[in-house]
C-alpha cells in the first residue's frame, strides 16, 4: 500500500544515433521491442510511474534525438532534468569514444544531477567480447532481451531521490 508522496521527476536519455535510446524507453515503459529502426525526430516523451519504498515516482522520460555534440543548440530539452542516462552501443566503439566529453558538457548544464552510463545491445556480443571492451559503464543492457533495463531506471530513480 502506498502511503507516501507522489513525486514527478524528469529523466533524459542521450547518446549517439541508433544506440537504442527509444528501444530502451519502449522496453521499460511498454515491455515491447521492435527490430525496426525509426529515427526519433526532436524529442519523444513517455511516462512511467514507479514505486520506490512508500513513494510513487512519476518518471517523465525525455528521449532526445541525435548526438549530444549536434544537439548543443537544443539545450532547452536538458533543462530541469533530475536524472541522465547516457546510452551507447556496446558493439560500436564510435558511440562511446566521445562519451566522457559529452557527459562533462551536459553536467555543466545540469550540475549535481545523477548520470548513468548504459552499454546497450549486449545481445550482439559474446561474453568474451564484452569482457574486452575498454570503456566503463554502470549497466550492461539489452533492450531486445530486456536485460537490466528495469534495473537501470530504478537505480536512477533511487539516485534522484537520494
Amino acid at each position, binding site marked *: 500500500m502506498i502511503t507516501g508522496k507522489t513525486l514527478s521527476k524528469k529523466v533524459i536519455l542521450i547518446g549517439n544515433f541508433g544506440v537504442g535510446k527509444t528501444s530502451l524507453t519502449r522496453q521499460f515503459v511498454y515491455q515491447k521491442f521492435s527490430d525496426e529502426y525509426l529515427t526519433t525526430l526532436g524529442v519523444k516523451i513517455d511516462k512511467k510511474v514507479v514505486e520506490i519504498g512508500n513513494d510513487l515516482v512519476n518518471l*517523465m522520460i525525455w528521449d532526445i534525438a541525435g548526438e549530444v555534440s549536434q544537439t548543443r543548440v537544443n539545450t*532547452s530539452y536538458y533543462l530541469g532534468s533530475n536524472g541522465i542516462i547516457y546510452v551507447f552501443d556496446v558493439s560500436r566503439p564510435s558511440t562511446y569514444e566521445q562519451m566522457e566529453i559529452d557527459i562533462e558538457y551536459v553536467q555543466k548544464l545540469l550540475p549535481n544531477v545523477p548520470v548513468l552510463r548504459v552499454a546497450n545491445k549486449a545481445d550482439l556480443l559474446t561474453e568474451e567480447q564484452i569482457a574486452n571492451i575498454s570503456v566503463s559503464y554502470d549497466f550492461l543492457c539489452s533492450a531486445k532481451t530486456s536485460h537490466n533495463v528495469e534495473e537501470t531506471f530504478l537505480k536512477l530513480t533511487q539516485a534522484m531521490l537520494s
Partner: protein
Amino acid sequence: MAENTKHTEDAFSKVNVFFDMFEEVLHKQNQQIEQRITQEIRNIKEALSQEEIKIQEKLNPVLEEKVERVKEELGKINNISAVIKKEIRESQPEMIDALYPIMGKLVQKFIKVELERLNENINKQLDNSFSWGAIRRELLGLLGIKQEDVLLAQASQATINEFFVIYQNSGILQAHYTKEDVIDDDMVAGMLTAIKSFINDAFRNSADLETIEYGNSKILIFSAVRFYLVAVVSGVVDKGFQERMQSYMQLFYETHLSNFSDEEITEKDLNKILKKHIEDFPNYNLIAQKLNDYRQNIKQKGNFNWKFWRW
C-alpha cells in the same frame, strides 16, 4: 492334358485375331471423325472471317456518324462552360439571386442553429436564477452591467477546456484543470514544454511562444519565471479575450505561485484553487471587458461618459 492345352491356345489365337480386327475398325473410325472435325473447324473459321467483314461493313458508317455527333456535343459543352463563366462574370447580382434559394437556406439554417444554441444557454442561465450566479449578476448589475449583457456574454463567450500550471524548464505538471478528464495531462505538459523549448532554441528569440491554434481551439500561454500557464480555449477567441486571459493568468501566477517556494506550492491544493479561479473567469472577463470599453470611451470622447453609469 496336352490336348486341353492345345485347345486353349487355339481359342486365344482366335480371340487375338478378333481384337486386332476390332482395333483396326476403331482406328479407321477415329480417323474419319478427326477429319470431319478438322473440316468443320475450317468451315467455321471461313464463315467467321466472312461475317466479320460483313459486320465491319455494316458498322463503319454508323460509327463514323456517332463519332461526328460526339465531337459536335463536346464542342457545345465547351461553349456552354465558357458562356456560363462569362455570364457569372457579367451578371453577378442575377447569379446571386439565382443561387440565393440554395445558399441562403444554408446560411439561414446555420444562423438558426447558432441562435438556438445561444437561446438554450440563456435559458439555462435563467433557470438557475436563484443560484450564486444569479446573485453575482445582481451584484454586477449594481456596477452598471446589465443582466442581459452578463447572460449574453456568458452564453456566447469562449470556454476554458483545459488549464495547466507547468514548471518552465522540466515540463513537470504542477496543477491541472479539465472539463472532461480524457487526456494524459503529464504527457501534454511535457510535449507543450518540448514545443516551447524547440521554438526558443530554433529561432533564438527572447520572445516566448504565446499562442498555438488548432481547429476551433486556441492554446494561450503565459510564461513567467519558474512556471508557465496554459489555457486551452474554444469558441470565439478574439484579441480582447486573449489579452484578458493573459491578465487573468498573470493574476493567478502572482496570487498563488510567484511568492511561494516549491514545497509550499506542493503542499497547497493547487488543483482546487485553480478550479475556483477558472470558474470565476467569466465574471472577471466581463468586468475587464466593460472597464476596457469604458477606458476607450473616455479616450475617444475626452470626457467622462455619464451614460455608462445607470445610477
